[in-house]
């Protein structure tokens, strides 16, 4: 589902975030991506989201070579990829419902479908009763769940998460991870960047460790073969 072939990313500042990185995440897989801050986790996710372009190599998502997507096609690519951020990226000037509905309105769903899908997504993250509130009145864990609902409301093929539990206590973090697992079980490919090794250790999923823009060899946890 996600494939990196010899991908390098060098920023104009000269910093080399990724260095000839190759890996593959299979369809229906849920994979953790760990490493210190600055190891290249965020860059890797940004390349999948087409928020950045690689300096060399190529990235494939669902068989589509991202190099071949022009500027105008980026929005359509992003609609197939859900993304969850540490800082939630929610809009506080509108309700929880409106935040979650945003990707659907953007994708041009008919109004009769929007309400149903939004409520289904909110129900899944356990926030159906909060739909009329502003996200600012929610706790950190709840805000993160709104972010997750927004990421999955459009039924993406791939779900990316960048430090989704960064600000949460272990109990809430476990809840969030359980949510990701549930989405993975219904067929969404999930890639989670985190530095919370203790949390990852409790999960049976494959883990990739990044260091200085490269995968650390022999760090595969679940024994799923690469490539």
């Amino acid at each position, binding site marked *: 589902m996600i494939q990196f072939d010899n991908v390098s990313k060098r920023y104009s500042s000269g910093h080399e975030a990724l260095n000839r990185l190759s890996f593959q995440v299979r369809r229906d897989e849920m994979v953790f991506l760990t490493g210190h801050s600055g190891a290249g986790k965020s860059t890797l996710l940004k390349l999948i989201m087409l928020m950045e372009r690689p300096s060399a190599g190529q990235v494939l998502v669902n068989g589509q070579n991202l190099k071949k997507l022009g500027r105008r096609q980026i*929005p359509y690519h992003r609609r197939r990829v859900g993304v969850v951020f540490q800082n939630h990226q929610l809009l506080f000037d509108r309700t929880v419902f409106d935040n979650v509905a*945003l990707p659907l309105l953007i994708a041009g769903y008919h109004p009769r*479908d929007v309400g149903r899908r*939004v409520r289904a997504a909110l129900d899944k993250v356990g926030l159906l009763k909060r739909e009329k509130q502003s996200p600012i009145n929610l706790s950190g864990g709840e805000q993160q769940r709104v972010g997750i609902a927004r990421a999955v409301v459009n039924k993406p093929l791939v779900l990316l998460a960048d430090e989704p539990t960064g600000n949460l206590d272990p109990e809430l973090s476990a809840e969030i991870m359980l949510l990701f697992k549930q989405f993975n079980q219904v067929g969404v490919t999930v890639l989670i960047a985190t530095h919370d090794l203790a949390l990852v250790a409790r999960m049976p999923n494959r883990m990739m460790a990044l260091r200085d823009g490269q995968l650390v060899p022999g760090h595969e946890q679940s024994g799923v073969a690469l490539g």
Partner: protein
Amino acid sequence: MVNLCPVMSNPGWPLAKTVSQRTSRRESGAVQRKSRVSDRLGAWRSHHRLVASQSLQRLLTHPLASILTWMVIGIALALPASLFIALDNLQQLTGGWDSAARISVYLHDSVSESAGRRLGEKLLEKPEISDFSYISKAEALAEFSTLSGFGSVIDELPDNPLPAVVLLQPALGLGSAEALEVLVREVQQLPEVELAQMDVQWVQRLYRLMELGKRVTLALAALLGLGVLLVTGNTIRLAIESRREEIEVVKLVGGTDAYVRRPFIYTGVWYGFGGGIVAWFLLLGLVAWLDGAVAGLVGLYDSQFELHGLGVAGSALLLLAGVLLGLGGSWLAVSRHLGAIQPQ
């Protein structure tokens, strides 16, 4: 002029409130539907409607800033429009003078009355001339003595000093002033003619002045139109700046450039439309205020003239100008600034 409105009102992408209200009724028994082409078209249209109404609502939630912008645009539109109205009225006023435009052809004393009438007939064949009348020396003298009040003095004169006159009526009024001037010079060359002249040269001069006024008004309209463009552009630029975070999120979840652009474009259109309405009311007030003074002046001249405002077509044109300038200004801002905002 450009930086008049630092307080910003925000455009916005549609909130789903209306959507959720509409859908909640049909929630039960909802069937899974793919968004088909017709659905998408419908959604696209309803999105336009939604963005249009919500960007207006956003402007109205910051009334002070919006009113300031509307006033600036309104004044900039009202200025050239009022000049157009003034010119239009002047044109209406002078339109009645066309019939007064005549060419007087004074004949030599040696030219007999029949020769004079023949000259008139000959000149009538020219397309520029629609009618002529012959005034003999005696008629001229009689007219002069009754109108001048010098009747008794004239009676004393040994012979009639006034020439016979052929009065020519131009076919097209003063609209063909240049052609008429050529004609006057031509007639002047005829052997029977002592002097040929246009009676209403001052009206012609007025026409020339009005032509000049039209050009000045056009230049002013162009400049102020540019001003409106820049004001709207700058206001929209600030709106974009204040919604940076929202733009990033929208782009992140797959908003196309057109989608991101839409609320700002509509906001610009509303600014222009509101400015047009302000201008319309300003002009209405101006005409009403001047009407009394004009009526008094016109009464002194015993004229039927009535000051008139923009009219339906003029009003529509004013609003259209506002809308187009708002659209242009926001397009300018959007194309310059939206591309630079990308999710980080």
